[in-house]
């Protein structure tokens, strides 16, 4: 089969899958290279640790996928994660509220904040970028009005969530991974098999056409920010389990990691094209970069940022090439 035939087959399958394909190959190559170079890299636990250490990023990136698919962007996710850890720590540790009450409350606050931002974006036609920027300022600022210092959590429910190991044969995962995987599955079903999911794609494809087709544009647009708010609050809960503390400086720059994961996962930033599973691959690639750098040992942590930046660059160029070919 010549290259042309391969390309045309791929074209028929939809170009949207090419970036995802590249990401999968990248993931396999990185893992193989890591296994060849470092002792102890080739083990199931290294892979599972990827999930354990990035469970919150995975959940946040899932929410971001919804927003980016509509052509929007949500810069407030990192700050919402921090606010969620802060509220949890504050209510549980300093006020003695039961965790079973605090966690739903935090999720409700996150969803509410997301819906409110979505409402402002839709009703007043202000760019999502600036509205969520304000949301980011507000959430980080609120963290500091609660406390400037880190509040550590000693509540038994939280510590048991942090320390429980769910065995998988000889390997183990944490409860957070289970929650994150459930969130991914739920989001996958919603995005690819529900009316809301189809509306998200339609809205990202063309807002005007969606309006003319009579799709519920306002509900969808506000809804995706609600989803993102919920996911960042859930990410915040998972981060509280992981860190066992609430702090206003948790998750600084997480919004960039989430956007990077979505882009590397093959979702077009202009909206309308992308897959949820791509985002999962994107998160794994980011996690693997960190793992490789920590295995290398001699490279400093700032190399992570540089490599992520370089990857973003490559994938954005790839997106451009693919979209410009489609138009002609």
């Amino acid at each position, binding site marked *: 089969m010549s290259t042309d035939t391969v390309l045309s087959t791929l074209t028929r399958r939809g170009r949207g899958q090419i970036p995802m394909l590249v990401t999968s190959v990248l993931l396999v190559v990185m893992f193989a290279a890591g296994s060849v170079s470092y002792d102890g890299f080739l083990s199931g636990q290294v892979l599972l640790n990827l999930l354990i250490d990035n469970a919150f990023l995975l959940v946040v990136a899932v929410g971001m996928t919804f927003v980016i698919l509509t052509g929007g962007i949500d810069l407030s996710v990192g700050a919402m994660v921090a606010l969620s850890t802060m509220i949890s720590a504050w209510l549980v540790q300093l006020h003695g509220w039961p965790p079973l009450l605090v966690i739903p409350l935090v999720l409700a606050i996150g969803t509410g904040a997301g819906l409110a931002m979505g409402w402002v974006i839709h009703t007043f036609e*202000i760019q999502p970028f600036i509205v969520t920027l304000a949301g980011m*300022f507000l959430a980080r600022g609120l963290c500091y009005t609660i406390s400037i210092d880190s509040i550590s959590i000693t509540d038994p429910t939280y510590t048991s969530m942090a320390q429980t190991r769910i065995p998988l044969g000889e390997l183990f995962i944490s409860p957070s991974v289970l929650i994150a995987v459930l969130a991914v599955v739920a989001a996958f079903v919603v995005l690819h098999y529900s009316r809301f999911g189809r509306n998200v794609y339609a809205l990202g494809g063309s807002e005007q056409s969606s309006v003319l087709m009579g799709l519920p544009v306002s509900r969808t647009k506000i809804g995706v920010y609600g989803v993102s708010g919920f996911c960042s609050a859930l990410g915040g809960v998972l981060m509280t389990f992981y860190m066992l503390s609430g702090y206003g400086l948790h998750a600084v720059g997480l919004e960039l990691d989430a956007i990077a994961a979505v882009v590397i996962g093959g979702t077009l930033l202009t909206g309308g094209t992308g897959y949820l599973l791509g985002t999962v691959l994107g998160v794994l690639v980011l996690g693997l970069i960190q793992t490789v750098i920590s295995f290398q040992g001699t490279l400093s942590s700032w190399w992570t940022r540089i490599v992520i930046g370089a990857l973003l660059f490559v994938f954005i160029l790839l997106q451009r090439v693919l979209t410009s070919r489609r138009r002609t």
Partner: protein
Amino acid sequence: MKLVTGHRLFWPAVVLIALLLANLAFTPDFFAIRLRDGHLYGSLIDILHFGSPLILVALGMTLVIATGGIDLSVGSTVAIAAALACLHISESDDPGSVGTVLTAVAIALGVALLLGAANGVLVARIGVQPIIATLILMVAGRGVAQLITDGQIITVTSEPFKLIGGGYWLTVPFSILLAAAVVLFASMLTRRTALGLLLESVGGNPVASRLVGIRAAGLIGLVYVVSALCAALAGLMISSNVSAADGNNAGLWIELDAILAVVVGGTSLNGGRFSLGGTVLGALVIQTLSTTVYTIGIPPETTLVFKAVVVIAVCLVQSPVFRAKAARRKSGARHGNRPVASKKLEVGA
């Protein structure tokens, strides 16, 4: 009266004056400016002094936003420029000489030129969305800055370098003079030549501008270079003021403050018309806000909450839909025919 309230600088100026007066209520000698040892001291001078880097960054940002773009990478550029300059000075044999400092400045500005050009090429030639194109440098840039400083904070002792951000010249802090000179130069260039008009037309309607023969790609590339240069100057000021380069924290969040300053100054994020004077006022509003929070004794970290409120308020006031709704509410109360215009707007949305 209408002429005054209708002026585009009216509202930013009102906010600035209100903030300054609020300070007067807390510190009675807020407006006092004293001359000590041939240097001017006072809260107003401090606001200008510490606001100078923000004014510079916001100035570059205004030009970028005028073309309908955005530059998220300025914070990283600040850090890279500061790191390069400090590294060169600390490694040279004669850190105190003017020649060393000038070379350091040239290196910082030269690299910034390249970074800006890279952003410009991505946006103007390859056609990547500005927010994403500059996001790359924003993410990678901090890493690069830390790579340059090797994760350390480089401290330098150099008299000429200290002058840029912390020194005085003719009784006034040098950074104020530098910022003023750049603002003056930029406004001359954009308002006395056709450059400003061309930028506004590119931002207002790129297709129409191309059809009338404006070389949009070159102009757009240029504004990213200018923005990076302004950021590099700001980086030199910030590092010179503390005589150190911190790859992690130099210029952290300055891109957000700069965007805020531009928006407060009345330049729309959608591109098109811009106002350099408004941006300077906007930057001063942001700086005064920070100063006010310090003087009143609120924990400085909560400044973010005030900034959030300011952003939302300003964006709502700028939003045509919000204006239409507010106006309708006013006239609706008078005539009692509120629902008439709403149908049309829903379709438009």
